[in-house]
């Protein structure tokens, strides 16, 4: 791990640096889902759309070849959406049904 790693942001949503990622990997977390749960990596609004590839490269460097890496889980919604729009969207549907 170099000094520089502390200045390289890997996960922009959760503000995690390359140093953070390397530290978690060295503790034995070797899948995207585990890294997410323990370190919030990819847990933010983009769900890892930016950081996943970078993390996968680090996992590969730490000895888990890409072909043996499990894909991480993506969960709905695809893009962040306000509680207000979800609530309003469904009441529109409800009023259409009633007509």
């Amino acid at each position, binding site marked *: 791990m170099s000094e520089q790693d502390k200045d390289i942001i890997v996960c922009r949503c959760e503000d995690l640096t390359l140093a953070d990622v390397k530290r978690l990997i060295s503790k034995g977390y070797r*899948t995207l*889902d*585990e890294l997410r*749960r*323990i370190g*919030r990596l990819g*847990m*933010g*609004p983009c*769900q890892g759309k930016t950081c996943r590839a970078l993390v996968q490269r680090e996992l590969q460097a730490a000895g888990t070849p890409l072909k043996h890496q499990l894909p991480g889980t993506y*969960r*709905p*919604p695809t893009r*962040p*959406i*306000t*509680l*207000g729009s*979800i*609530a309003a*969207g*469904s*009441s529109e549907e409800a009023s259409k049904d009633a007509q």
Partner: protein
Amino acid sequence: MHSSAEVVVIGGGVNGVAIAYELAKRGCTDVVVLERDYLASGATGRCGAGVRQQWGTEMNLRMSIASVKRFETMNEDLDYDGDIEFKQGGYLLLAYTPAGWEQFQKNVNLQRSFGLGVKLCTPAEAREIVPHLNTEGLLGATFNQTDGHCNPFHVTDAYAQAARRLGVKIYTNTEVLGIRRGGAGEGRIVGVKTTGGYIATPVVVNAAGGWSKDIAAMAGVDIPTYSERHQILVTEPVAPMQGPMVMSFHHHIYCQQTPHGSFIMGLGDAAEKPGYSSRSTWQFAEEMAQKITWLLPPLKGIRVVRQWAGLYNMTPDRTPILGAVPEVPGLFLAVGFSGHGFMLAPMTGVLLAESVLGLPASLPIEKMDLGRFARGELFDEPSVV
């Protein structure tokens, strides 16, 4: 992989690792934990992370109070290099019907008799605690400041690391396929068959969460647990605005802001059938959004970033089953947490370790045994979402 162990714990959720740690701490270090996927991949890593002591029955109360004491000093006690993020912002429980309010008053009397400083609040007082609460239709509320939130991944990690330091072996990606008993299959536990090989052991602890019934069946016992999907979502982080968990049994919902700033909220669906599905649905997101924006209107503008689901492992009286199974010497249960097994985990670990090692029990765990269903000595926990 180990070919023998003094104790095999099945399940790498918060309960499995807590039990393993407490065993090792009491000198029983030849312990193996088996987890099919990775640690906290089951209900533990999917839960609402709420820690509550405001229960309506004696054992839930006693276990949750003693567990909170342990959460308070867990970072130091387990010598954790991270932070379990314990926040004691309280739980505000809302009552909307005369019967609900009456039940709350009964609960509060019981809670106070165990030393909890629970307050009964008028709707106006509830609004002082949560200023953005819509009090329409609200009859009253109860509030306990020492309830709160704790990070389930970190609690699991803290126990796992502490257990490993004491010599416990944790095997992830290792599934239990069968349990062997001696005496032509009718005697005591003798071993466990796994995808990584066979482990000879005289003691198995079933801490398999949503799959507890399958594991018990492998040992030849039928237990009255079943699993039920529960859904949940989380928002983007925002500046701190809500101290306590807000919970309404009437609307079957709960909602709390975590120390990270995000809101976690979930909903119990009375129409949910027993099963093993943990898929999330659009219907849940709609119903959740409608209910919560009515109850806590300023949340309208906050964005949902993820929704998911996990399994509650239920029992007929919505209270866990803990301890030995007399018909199967060597088999122990820590199952059926009915949606509140994270907050009880510290005491579950202690009680199971004491039970396995034959030590005096810190709490009357015998009341929570499997035999209570045959004896008809059920708990009647009124306060479950």
